[in-house]
């Protein structure tokens, strides 16, 4: 599962932009290469990972967020829009370090802060967490609980839960 110490290549794939029926594969753009599998967790509103997320236990702690209290550990987190904070990369790296972070991130909008947090955690702790970008129409088809598998080339295998 983990590649030890190796440098990670960025592989630019094509953005999946056709509506895909459940059970198919979708090609995303690789922001950070890695592989993962897990159950989808779709964020219903933007979340600030600094202040709105507790990196010690991986829970959403923003009291204004509709998914307040949700655990993110091990999930494939689908993020239509994020709220950037300078502290976002640190919070993500810390959650990944202590094993309470998501197994993968799938974004509809490119996000440098999430990507950098993951890159640092992958480098420091020999993890293999991917960050993939897909289109907004595709991400809207995801439901929390869908079974997701991501390969290092950014191919997302997707089964309705």
């Amino acid at each position, binding site marked *: 599962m983990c590649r030890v110490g190796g440098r990670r290549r960025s592989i630019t794939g094509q953005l999946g932009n056709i509506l895909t029926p459940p059970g198919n594969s979708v090609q995303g753009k690789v922001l950070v290469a890695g592989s993962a599998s897990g159950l989808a967790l779709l964020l219903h509103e933007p979340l600030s990972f600094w202040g709105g997320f507790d990196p010690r236990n991986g829970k959403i702690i923003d009291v204004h967020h509709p998914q307040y209290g949700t655990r993110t550990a091990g999930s494939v987190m689908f993020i239509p829009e994020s709220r950037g904070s300078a502290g976002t990369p*640190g919070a993500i790296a810390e959650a990944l370090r202590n094993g309470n972070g998501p197994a993968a991130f799938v974004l509809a909008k490119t996000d*440098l802060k999430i990507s*950098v947090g993951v890159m640092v955690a992958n480098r420091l702790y020999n993890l293999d967490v991917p960050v993939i970008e897909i289109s907004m129409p595709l991400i809207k088809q995801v439901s929390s609980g869908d079974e997701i598998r991501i390969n290092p080339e950014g191919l997302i295998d997707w089964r309705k839960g």
Partner: protein
Amino acid sequence: MPGLHLDGRDQNLLDGKQGKAMQFAMETIVAAANIETAESLIEISFAHIDSCFYSGRAHLDFALFLLQHKARLAVPTWTNTGLVALDDFSIRDPFASNEVNEARQLMEAYVQLGCKPVWTCAPYQLPGRPQLGDHIVGSESNAVSFYNSVIGARTNKYGDFFDVCAALIGKVPLTGLHCDEGRRSRVLFTLDDIPRQIRASDIFYHLLGHLVGRHCGSLVPVISGLPGSTDEDDLKAISAAGSSSGSVPLFHAVGITPEAATLDDACQNQAPEKTVSLSVSDLQSAREELGTDSNQPLQGIALGTPHFSYTEFERLVGLLQGRCINKSLVFYLTTSRHVYARAESQGWIGLLEAAGVKIITDTCTYFSPAVNGLRGKVMTNAAKWAYYAPGMLPVQVVLGSLAECVESAVAGEVLLDSWATS
């Protein structure tokens, strides 16, 4: 990577010839160029980093990784606030000792790396700041907004780890606010319906920033109608409030900020896509939104978010007029070491401490659960403190002008006398 031009030094770094830390930093810059589809890199002259702010062991591990592999900074690099005051143990929860120790180790690691230890979220108040047109790296949100808007230096809102990687390499992808196109205003805020005397009061700028942040989305705003008296403390307030309620890494103000001599300059001779006309009732709603209902007695005052400036110290001393803070309250004021030293040379620190003001450097008072005594109803003059503190501390907030904060602190109860209450 196709399309991205790398020179010989970049390639050497990428190949690991300067060690693993510099290699990782270069990989991060290249990955960022891929992520943001930039075709070239641009040299920066300065960085203000947030990576020194501890939020977990990963921060410290990263700094130690850089030191272990002999990373070297390419540009002058200044530090944001830390989680703790390096020279004052008394203001943090002694039971959180592991967190405190690691936060201090983190700050010390960045000093060892060669950063200038200014420990402030208002680095623009210090001499030697960047100039108009300089490409730099900013990270903390209010500093990014102030650098872009008030100084006219150019930075995207970066963030932890990337800020240090860019300072090590001395380059960032040429994209976003580094480019002219990214700096064009697309949404106009007008103030014609707001009386002139309101536009000249200090709390107005906090409320204005909050409203701009709420309404501009991802578009660069331009504000028309700020008075000629608008100073850097006022612009600091807009920067901080706008990047709390929203994400405003750049705003222009016609006749005030350097890239907006005229509205056409700010909009680069195009028409704004949207105009928002602000009214007094909008300001009143913003003030209500930033306050939390509470019948409890006033228990504290918090000033200095972002860090208190020299001119704010001068105003505070004038407003206090030798009176003392009511003994039922705690009164915290945060500032940078630099401004502290200047205030001290005027004798103000002694005066304020004798009056009951607790002055803190290096850090801030809204993000730690362990500021002694700061609970219950707390009054602040800062929209940013009002926005964030209720989520992080057991407090209810009242937002007031500096004068209202001072009068309330002396009386020991909330006294609001200005227009902004409905």
